């Protein structure tokens, strides 16, 4: 048990077959790829749901789908995009890039990392399995009480949603603990916090938001579960319960969640711009502090989602002011990004296109957000398509553009091959045009009174034209992803081989081969500055000379690298946990059996490496 044999790269995979090696992998890079590809599939599912909704809304009084189906579609679209697409796509980059960018060989808890992925997968499958049972959730991604109570939603659809989110929450929090420890505790020698790449900083803030925001929704969902299954009265108005309690708990989670979705993209942009402008990030400490400010204030603005519920003028004013304050660090970030470009020597790669798209579109989303910070204005706009437009400018124009910037930027690092730049730019322009055609008219629709979450509308309200435009735009977006998928397929075999540093990068991940070896760094680097790799190549411009190539790595150094071997406990534990949680819908015996199994597997999991390898300590 105490002998943790040195795991030599690749050896295990050859012995045990490809599938088994992926099921048992604890390599952060493989887990990152699993996260990314799973999330992309869920992203496509969520996108198809959106297309069906757009088709339904293309014409007034349309009957393509029923009211019930439409309500299921928008519920699942929101839930899927937030929890199964954007968050895990970010997690893919956290997994793959964090260790590489801080000069580590793996994350702090590799098996916990695998566990997070398998729990995420089971949560995603569970949530989508509801379609197969004809019981897709229909309470909205926000699931406002008391519509979700047993009285108004007696079917299991809400249970699928409630338990699915609970499972996904466990996954996110485990990943959060893991990455916080990884970032704080596994940085390469010399990499102080202020020398960390800005992407790592934004990831760190995101992880803190995750581990601190998810408990609130966990509690909200627990209360809902008790209401639905055990007869408690938390959201039951007739017993004095207040449905607004749900809204408060939900948005205490939900607003930080917005920053969970956008901060990773901001981090990516903060890496891509300096690389292609060939200039350091302007005011990097300011960008970092802004990110921290956004994260911290993110916990103090939740009620701006609730201006219309009647909290009274004092609370309205307090949350309005707090919300406006949060616009300051956000605006400061945008100006710092533009200043990074200023005076640079900008190379227009696809990755940079997407980052520029991020800045342009996120600025719009941010500015329409300022409108909602003013409660009197918000009262007209909340729950209309104006808000739909606003948050798609933030989450699609922001997060998705940012994540695709990261995808084009790090693709060569992950796969060893470059994506085709021509197809990439086609993807960008189709997505940019399609996105604006889809969502810009929704500002108009909101201002002329179209409420959200309606499956049909009357023909005489002046909404027909813009709805049709919006639907057409949605299909242009879909086309852009066809181009992306084609690009991926085409370049997998024939793409140009990237080499370790295709973009003339600035951070540590570009100092190692593409794709990186299992152990990442043959020799753990020592860091002297932010953008250390760049300074090593070019000097600091103030007389600091470029550093020469490092001494070649010796066989003895390679032999001394210990990597954790694969483990099948994470996937088993994830299965057991799912058995336990889903038992709530099926039978108490299943909960007990699943619970005991979970406990047993946790014990086996913990005891797999009871002791560190021999030679430690004394």
């Amino acid at each position: 048990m105490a002998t943790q044999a040195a795991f030599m790269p690749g050896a295990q995979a050859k012995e045990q077959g490809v599938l088994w090696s992926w099921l048992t992998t604890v390599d952060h890079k493989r887990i990152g790829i699993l996260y990314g590809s799973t999330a992309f599939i869920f992203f496509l599912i969520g996108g198809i749901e959106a297309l069906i909704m757009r088709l339904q809304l293309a014409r007034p009084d349309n009957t393509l789908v029923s009211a019930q189906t439409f309500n299921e579609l928008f519920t699942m679209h929101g839930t899927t995009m937030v929890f199964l697409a954007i968050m895990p796509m970010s997690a893919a980059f956290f997994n793959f890039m964090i260790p590489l960018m801080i000069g580590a060989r793996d994350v702090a808890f590799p098996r916990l990392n695998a566990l997070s992925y398998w729990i995420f997968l089971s949560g995603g499958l569970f949530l989508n399995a509801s379609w197969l049972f004809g019981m897709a959730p229909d309470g909205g991604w926000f699931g406002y009480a008391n519509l979700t109570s047993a009285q108004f939603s007696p079917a299991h659809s809400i249970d699928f949603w409630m338990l699915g989110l609970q499972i996904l929450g466990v996954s996110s929090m485990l990943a959060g603990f893991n990455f916080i420890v990884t970032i704080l505790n596994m940085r390469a020698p010399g990499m102080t916090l202020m020398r960390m790449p800005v992407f790592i900083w934004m990831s760190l803030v995101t992880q803190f938001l995750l581990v601190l925001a998810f408990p609130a929704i966990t509690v909200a969902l627990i209360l809902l579960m008790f209401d639905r299954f055990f007869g408690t009265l938390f959201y039951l108005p007739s017993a004095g319960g207040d449905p607004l309690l749900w809204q408060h708990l939900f948005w205490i989670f939900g607003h930080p969640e917005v920053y969970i979705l956008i901060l990773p993209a901001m981090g990516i942009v903060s890496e891509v711009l300096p690389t292609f402008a060939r200039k350091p990030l302007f005011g990097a400490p300011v960008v970092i502090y802004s990110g921290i400010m956004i994260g911290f204030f993110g916990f103090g603005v939740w009620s701006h989602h609730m201006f219309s519920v009647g909290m009274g003028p004092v609370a309205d004013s307090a949350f309005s002011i707090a919300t406006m304050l949060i616009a300051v660090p956000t605006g400061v970030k945008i100006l710092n990004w533009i200043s990074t470009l200023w005076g640079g020597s900008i190379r227009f790669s696809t990755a940079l296109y997407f980052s520029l798209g991020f800045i342009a579109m996120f600025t719009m989303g941010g500015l329409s957000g300022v409108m909602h910070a003013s409660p009197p204005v918000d009262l007209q706009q909340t729950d209309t398509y104006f808000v739909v437009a606003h948050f798609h400018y933030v989450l699609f124009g922001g997060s998705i553009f940012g994540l695709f910037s990261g995808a084009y930027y790090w693709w060569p690092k992950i796969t060893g091959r470059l994506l085709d730049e021509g197809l990439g730019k086609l993807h960008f322009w189709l997505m940019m045009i399609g996105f604006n055609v889809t969502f810009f008219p929704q500002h108009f629709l909101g201002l002329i009174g179209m409420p959200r979450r309606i499956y049909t509308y009357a023909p005489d309200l002046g909404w027909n034209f813009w709805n049709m435009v919006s639907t057409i735009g949605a299909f242009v977006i879909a086309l852009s992803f066809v181009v992306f998928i084609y690009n991926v397929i085409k370049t997998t075999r024939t793409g140009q081989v990237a080499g370790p540093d295709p973009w003339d990068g600035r951070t540590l991940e570009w100092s190692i081969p593409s794709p990186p070896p299992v152990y990442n760094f043959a020799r753990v680097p020592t860091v002297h500055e932010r953008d250390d790799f760049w300074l090593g190549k070019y000097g600091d411009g103030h007389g600091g000379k470029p550093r020469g190539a490092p001494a070649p790595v010796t066989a003895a150094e390679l032999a001394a690298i210990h990597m954790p071997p694969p483990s099948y406990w994470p996937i088993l534990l994830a299965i057991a946990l799912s058995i336990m949680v889903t038992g709530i819908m099926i039978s108490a015996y299943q909960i007990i059996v699943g619970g005991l199994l979970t406990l047993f597997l946790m014990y086996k999991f913990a005891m797999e490496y009871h002791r560190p390898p021999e030679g430690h300590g004394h």
Partner: protein
Amino acid sequence: MTKRLFSASTARTVVLLAGVALSLSSCGWSLWDNPMTTVRPKSDFGRWSDEIFMLISWTTLVIFIAVEGALLYACWRFRDRPGAPIPKQIHGHTVLEISWTIAFAVVLLIIGIPTIKLIFKTQEAPAATALRVDVAGKQWWWEFSYPEFKITTANELHLPVGQSVAFDLHAPDVIHSFWIPQLGGKRDVVPHRVNRIVMTPAVPGEYLGQCAEYCGMSHANMRFRVVVHPKGEFDAWVKAQQAPPAESTDPLAQQGKTLFAQSACVGCHTIAGVSAGQIGPNLTHFGSRKSLAANMMPNTAANLAKWVENPDHLKPGARMPNLGMSGEQSKAIAAYLLSLK
């Protein structure tokens, strides 16, 4: 591989953004005048919100143009040129950072101060002279009661022009949101508490309202109609509503009345002098209403007969059960209900 297509792509960016700006500035204006527009306010409350909205819109438009302009200019001006040296490695500029932080704070003050003032102004207690209307949002229709006049009606709200109105909002089932876009912002209708919204309609006319908080299957069909009357007209409307329902001599309507009184209808609906059900809409003056099923369709005999026959077919999830009425029976009931002027 990263250096090609520069000028062409920039040109496309410019064209695209110009197009966006154009659509913002030119085609926008002509389409604001719609039945549920929020930017042509017809009440004091709506007008105040709209003033702040315009203030923020213009402010943010200036910022928008400045930021996007700077972005595009930077992309054009500092594009990579062949053989260009490594640019100067600038790490930041403290004075700049401080000054744009302050600039943002100033902009927010410009927006924030009137906002806070307006929050308090719009949430003051209503004047003693204000007309009180109790609004109940139910799955999926609206009930309006005027306690001063002892009138209850459904899905059609009648208001006098120029008089302050205080709506007290109740929700017996789930959360809804009361919204008449042309008369101002919405206020959620929350079980367990009574919310209030106060406004003074300024222009007579017909407006549309709709539930704006997702409330279940037929949320999209929870609409209502608002009629703002000139003063005298409103009084006449009140009088008509207070009167007992008209008695029709039409035999079909008479037959319908008998059917109504003998069937399950009476369990849910009130018709003064006939029944006293509390669950569904009050039908005492149903014939005077212009629309049916929470403003889903015109209140015609044909529509009404279809509705009585199978409510769920017209309005998914409708709480009114299918009573198994035959075509003849439902036509009779429709004739009766429409006679209730």
